[in-house]
């Protein structure tokens, strides 16, 4: 099934011009148009750990730096580590620690078994004992955290520069008030662009060449350069290397802070969280996908998959294609909705028509943007989305379809009808319909390969499919009376095979 769907034989053009199989497309019920992952707006919906399935509120996830507190990844192979338990015999401790049911009197020599845990990788056999992390009494949370050597220095630097910039800002405001001419300290270093030396610096805001009337905000000791650098160890020239002790580049980069060079310094890494994503149509700001909050649920609160709304076109078979001869192809068309659909097969828009449609889309969009940018009252959050520039479909047609001479109806999906085998004989079908059952119809169309094709060239053909769509979800009463049928167009591209001779 997956193979059959993932092979790109039949693709639909999204409104934005990107081609995708129907299974990868969404259908915005409000704009009545196809949308794809490329032109939808993605949002982080909820954070969870893919190992322990704990749901973590986003504010907390932020505090935890998007890591799970309890789950770890193997620093050696990046698989998930599991906690293994061992029992050890420990002498009964004196008073304080025990707490179990103990015999106070004869405590001194008595041994008790105690459960201890270590982390082990089931994939590569790495264990936390390999790097000298002592076993822990509890399975969760108690693992020692790795210190980052440079944290303190970084903190100092960060605070220092924050203060510098603030101080500069004040100075600049002062200076603007006084409007005196500031001279640059190093006038000789100008570059071709006509920027003065300090201009980049000033533009970026780090300009401190103004007279230092005020003391520096914080004092930080600048780094001191040294001529003493670490030499190669002498043994490197004589001692054979044991590759097993040296980390790979992948292992180093998986611990970006420390990038350990030897396996001794590998350290269990808190597992990175995963997210559920929701997708939003950028034209109307409605969700097309919104997953359920619960991490173990695979359901959605909103799911507007195109395959539930738009008729599916499946390629059944084709006669061999020969240069200059028309060949027939058989397509199956399936109506996924619970309303009958009338389908019309039409020509794809020509290049000019496509360009015009894109222009049209751009115009409506520009209008909405200019309105939004003009009205200063619009709070920034209410701005309309910048819309991805629509583009031409990147697909060259090499076979032309002979259009059928009439429209046809595809019956509604009726799950119960699957089981009765009454054949509908009452419908007078046009000749190109060769088979029909329940909500499926097979049609036979002729394809004429374009001139100039060679053997083994792909035939790519396509059509605009117009279908009637009943928007059953719109429950606003006034609309209901008008009948909710819309005639919608989608562009379908099919690759039925190659020129055989």
């Amino acid at each position, binding site marked *: 099934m997956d193979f059959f769907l993932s092979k790109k034989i039949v693709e639909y053009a999204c409104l934005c011009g990107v081609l995708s199989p129907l299974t990868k497309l969404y259908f915005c019920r409000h704009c009545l148009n196809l949308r794809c992952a490329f032109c939808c707006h993605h949002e982080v919906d909820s954070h969870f750990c893919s190992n322990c399935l704990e749901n973590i509120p986003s504010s907390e996830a932020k505090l935890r730096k998007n890591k799970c507190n309890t789950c770890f990844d193997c620093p050696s192979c990046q698989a998930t580590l599991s906690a293994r338990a061992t029992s050890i015999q420990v002498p009964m401790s004196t008073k304080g620690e025990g707490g179990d049911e103990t015999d106070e009197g004869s405590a001194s020599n008595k041994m008790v078994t105690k459960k201890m845990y270590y982390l082990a990788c089931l994939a590569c056999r790495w264990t936390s004992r390999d790097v000298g992390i002592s076993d822990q009494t509890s399975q969760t949370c108690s693992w020692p955290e790795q210190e980052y050597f440079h944290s303190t220095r970084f903190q100092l630097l960060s605070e220092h520069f924050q203060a510098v910039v603030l101080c500069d800002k004040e100075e600049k405001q002062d200076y603007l008030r006084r409007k005196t001419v500031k001279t640059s300290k190093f006038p000789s270093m100008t*570059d071709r662009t006509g920027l003065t030396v300090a201009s980049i610096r000033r533009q970026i805001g780090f300009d401190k060449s103004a007279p230092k009337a005020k003391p520096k905000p914080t004092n930080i000791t600048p780094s001191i350069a040294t001529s003493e650098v670490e030499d190669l160890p002498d043994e490197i020239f004589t001692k*054979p290397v044991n590759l097993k002790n040296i980390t790979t580049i992948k292992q180093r980069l998986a611990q*970006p802070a420390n990038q350990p060079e030897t396996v001794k310094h590998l350290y269990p890494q808190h597992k990175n969280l995963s997210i559920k994503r929701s997708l939003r149509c950028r034209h109307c700001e409605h969700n097309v996908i919104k997953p359920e909050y619960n991490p173990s649920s695979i359901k959605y609160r909103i799911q507007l998959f195109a395959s539930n709304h738009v008729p599916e076109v499946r390629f059944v078979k084709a006669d061999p294609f020969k240069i200059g001869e028309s060949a027939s192809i058989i397509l199956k068309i399936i109506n996924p909705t619970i309303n009958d659909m009338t389908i019309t097969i039409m020509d794809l828009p020509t290049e000019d028509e496509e360009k015009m449609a894109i222009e049209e889309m751009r115009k409506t969009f520009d209008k909405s943007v200019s309105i939004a940018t003009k009205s200063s009252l619009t709070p*920034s959050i209410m701005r309309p989305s*910048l819309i991805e520039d629509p583009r031409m479909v990147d697909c060259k047609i090499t076979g032309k379809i002979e259009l059928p001479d009439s429209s046809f109806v595809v019956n509604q999906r009726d799950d119960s009808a699957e089981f009765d085998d009454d054949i509908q004989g009452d419908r007078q079908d046009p000749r190109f319909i060769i088979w029909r059952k329940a909500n499926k119809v097979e049609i036979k169309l002729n394809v004429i390969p374009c001139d100039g094709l060679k053997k083994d060239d792909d035939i790519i053909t396509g059509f605009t499919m117009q279908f009637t769509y009943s928007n059953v979800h719109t429950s606003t009463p006034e609309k209901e009376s008008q009948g909710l049928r819309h005639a919608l167009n989608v562009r379908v591209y099919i690759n039925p095979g190659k020129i055989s001779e």
Partner: protein
Amino acid sequence: MPIFETVFQEKPAIVLEIGSVYTKIGFCGEAHPRFIISTEIRSISDILKKSYISLYDQTAAFFTKIFFKYLLASPKDRKVSIVESVLTPTVIRECIAKVLFYHFEVSSVLFLPTHLVATATLAVENAVVVDLGFKETIVIPVYSGVQVLSAWQAQPLGSEAVHDKIKAELILNGVKEEILTDAVIEDIKVRTCFVTKQSRALSFKSKEEIQPCPDLEYPVDGNDVIKVPGQLREVAFEVLFPKDNDRLGLPYIILDAILNCPVDTRKVLAENILLIGGTASALGMTARLKAELTKLIESDYYKNRLFIQEVKFHSAPSKPNFTAWLGGSIYSSTELITSSSFTVTRENYLKNSKIPDWVNYESAFVRTQG
């Protein structure tokens, strides 16, 4: 609820440094990047030949991964800082801005120049910043907190050259080319090769008989074993120190950059060298550079021009491959994220989709000295 969050609780800016092989990603105000991942926008010049749309789509796909798989942060209405080399072609910078504003609807983008922000990690005002990256090494002096753009030097001396050397040698030794994938070559370099001492390098070059470091068997998936000769382990990095008359090796471009600066700044600059970029992590790199530079400043050519007695190196509070990112994190945690005139806000971008340009590539190139 979302309104409260966006208005009253400022979300930390996202800081990205997109290298040609590794991308460093994280949030401002943090001491190290959250992730270092491989850059999935491959060979930008190739893509550009194909089409702008393709570059745009790849960038969008890569950023989607960064935001939703790694950082887990909705980019909408966020501030984003991009740390990048001043030599990055404008078309790429524009593409990044367009993707961020159109596709992700960020609220502002701040472009920060690699070399300048790297000095913030030291809290110094003067330094020669040497970025030893994958494709190339770029040297730009920073004096008094300003990049001396006219003095820049760049050469295709980076890890890529080293990888090519390792690959070529191993193929010469009869190793099958199919098993020498980029990942295997990189791993061989990282785990087994080092920058040897100057004296030994000279011996190797003059074909003297010296005992190289031990050979090594490197197992690869399946049952293959690659034999890595000791000599290759030692000389792989020598491509960065070519013996030539064109003065193109690493030490030359560093000194030439200093030479391009005004006389009175040169001593200070030579005594404040900062090596950044992953290639600087190679074992022995700093020591070797020091030896080479020390020797070179005594040579006739530089002695009478530079008047430097000594070179000194800084070490940043970071691993070299994310020093520039760290500078970006520091910059972005200040007010500059909103007030710098290099900040492009969404409103401004909408009005005149322009982004500021550091400097015109050509003009900086033609310039020799101030």
